[in-house]
């Protein structure tokens, strides 16, 4: 089983430095792209490979790149979205800390494909080790001639900067990230125009996730057929999956795209801890719908998880066990989303704190039967199409599915006027 993205990451958690990266074939894809390929050929290759974005939305990367107008004068930008603030998600940290040059090489090739002049790594504040490694990797890449003017003697030049955020979930949203990088509040922008046409400082801009960009050098080196062959399903490549919660071995693993939830949970995460039963999981971070034990054989790819009524999202699963209150679990999530709402549009700004308040009252024994209907209404009023960006619709996914699958728990709170779980926490 191949693990292209993580195979060279040292076991001790240290970063792979430039010389070590070069020793395992690092930067050969960049040489190949600059020497043998036109920018459009790189884009076409990524499009043919059907690489889908690993940040959560799953949009086809090559298609996204193809929207960049190639014949406009002035700067163009390429940004690695390394904000990773979705609760339950910790996969990009592994790549950033373990193999920073893999990301850089992917970024430089991606920048070549869209003829970007400047690139940024937008890194979240809390990733101190990643910041140190990225800073060093960028400096080393400049010294080695992989960045700067006339890279490896070609006509292509690229400047690269590391930007560390100051903590706000909204920064992970593509257009909010652009505002933040421009020194503003991280509120989302209206689309169209899409960032590919008018992004950072009004110039064409591509924003891709860290895991997505880490693929580029491998696809250039090995081709689209190889990429597709790594997967069990129609969505090519491997995926970095993760599991957290009360399992025996929480962690992250690079596995073929399309492995089942059961394999992930039982073989890799080692099953539930003794005395705990699996009740459900958010398959891809805090903004995805619960799946339950009826879905254990669902294939963890974009289509498979969608068919089961959820989203692959970031592929990092949060497990709900039978000792944890589902209402408390959802309350924690809605507290997060209410707090991190940028306040820019009314349904999100007003609706999320209201949702949180209802869940708080259920947990504290003052919930009423009408509250469940009110929560249901919120899941629709804050759903897709009613808000400016995807934050509130994402926040409604765990709630709507909890109301569906764990209804009896909500009702029990109202009936007993208390949280029925021993380890009541809110």
């Amino acid at each position, binding site marked *: 089983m191949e693990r292209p993205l993580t195979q060279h990451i040292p076991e001790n958690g240290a970063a792979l430095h430039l010389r070590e990266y070069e020793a395992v074939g690092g930067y050969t894809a960049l040489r190949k792209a600059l020497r043998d390929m036109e920018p459009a050929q790189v884009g076409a290759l990524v499009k043919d490979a059907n690489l889908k974005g690993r940040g959560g939305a799953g949009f086809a990367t090559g298609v996204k790149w193809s929207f960049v107008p190639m014949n406009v004068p002035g700067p163009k930008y390429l940004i690695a979205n390394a904000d990773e603030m979705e609760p339950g998600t*910790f996969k990009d940290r592994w790549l950033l800390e373990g193999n920073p040059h893999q990301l850089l090489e992917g970024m430089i090739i991606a920048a070549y494909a869209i003829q970007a002049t400047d690139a940024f790594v937008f890194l979240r504040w809390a990733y*101190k*080790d990643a910041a140190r490694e990225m800073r060093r990797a960028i400096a080393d890449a400049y010294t080695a001639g992989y960045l700067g003017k006339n890279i490896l003697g070609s006509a292509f030049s690229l400047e690269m900067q590391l930007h560390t955020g*100051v903590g706000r979930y909204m920064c992970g949203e593509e257009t909010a990230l652009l505002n933040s990088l421009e020194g503003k509040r991280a509120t989302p922008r209206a689309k169209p125009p899409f960032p590919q046409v008018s992004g950072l400082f009004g110039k064409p801009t591509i924003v891709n996730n860290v895991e997505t960009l880490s693929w580029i050098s491998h696809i250039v080196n090995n081709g689209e057929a190889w990429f597709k062959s790594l997967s069990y399903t129609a969505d090519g490549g491997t995926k970095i999956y993760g599991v957290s919660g*009360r399992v025996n071995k*929480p962690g*992250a693993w690079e596995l073929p795209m399309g492995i089942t939830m059961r394999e992930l949970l039982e073989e890799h995460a080692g099953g539930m801890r003794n005395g705990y039963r699996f009740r459900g999981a958010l398959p891809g971070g*805090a903004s995805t719908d619960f799946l339950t034990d009826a879905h254990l054989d669902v294939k963890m790819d974009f289509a498979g998880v969608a068919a089961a009524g959820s989203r692959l999202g970031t592929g990092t699963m949060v*497990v709900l066990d039978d000792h944890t209150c589902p209402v408390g679990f959802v309350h924690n999530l809605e*507290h997060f989303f209410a707090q991190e709402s940028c306040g820019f549009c009314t349904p999100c700004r007003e609706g999320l704190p209201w949702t949180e308040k209802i869940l708080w009252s259920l947990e504290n024994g003052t919930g009423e039967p009408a509250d469940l209907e009110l929560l249901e209404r919120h899941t629709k009023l804050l759903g897709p199409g009613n808000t400016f960006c995807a934050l509130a619709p994402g926040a409604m996914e765990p709630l709507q599915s909890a109301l569906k699958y764990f209804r009896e728990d909500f009702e029990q709170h109202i009936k007993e006027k208390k949280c029925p779980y021993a380890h009541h926490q809110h």
Partner: protein
Amino acid sequence: MLSAIEIEKITHELQQVPVKKAACIEALKIVQQERRWVSDESVADIAAMLEMSTAEVDSVATFYNLIFRQPVGRHVILLCDSISCYVMGYTVLRQRLHEILLIGYGQTTADERFTLLPNACLGTCDHAPALMIDDDLYRDIQPADLEQILEKYH
């Protein structure tokens, strides 16, 4: 008044960006690095330097969780309160921190040693519960570990 070193660092940032406003977040970070927090006076000073209104700089400063508009202690404790840490028992840690430090969220100990803040997902969910003190990340914490961890910070 911005210090000479703050002015020098902000001037350097201004050279990296096409419009002055774009250095706003970096300027706030620089001042906070020097003073631990960003006062009203500093907001006004940054505004003057970046040719922005005070309100505009303040709107940016107050938007971001990790720009502090009130004084904080010598060490800032960020307790992860996100879902994986919830499942793995962060609320017990929160309770224990309240007991040891005698402060709640958003408060600073009387000796100005610690400020305690909640923090959304530290991205180390496979080692929950987690917290950060200044630049140091602590993972898989048991409530009994807390006192020993805190002892390292004076």
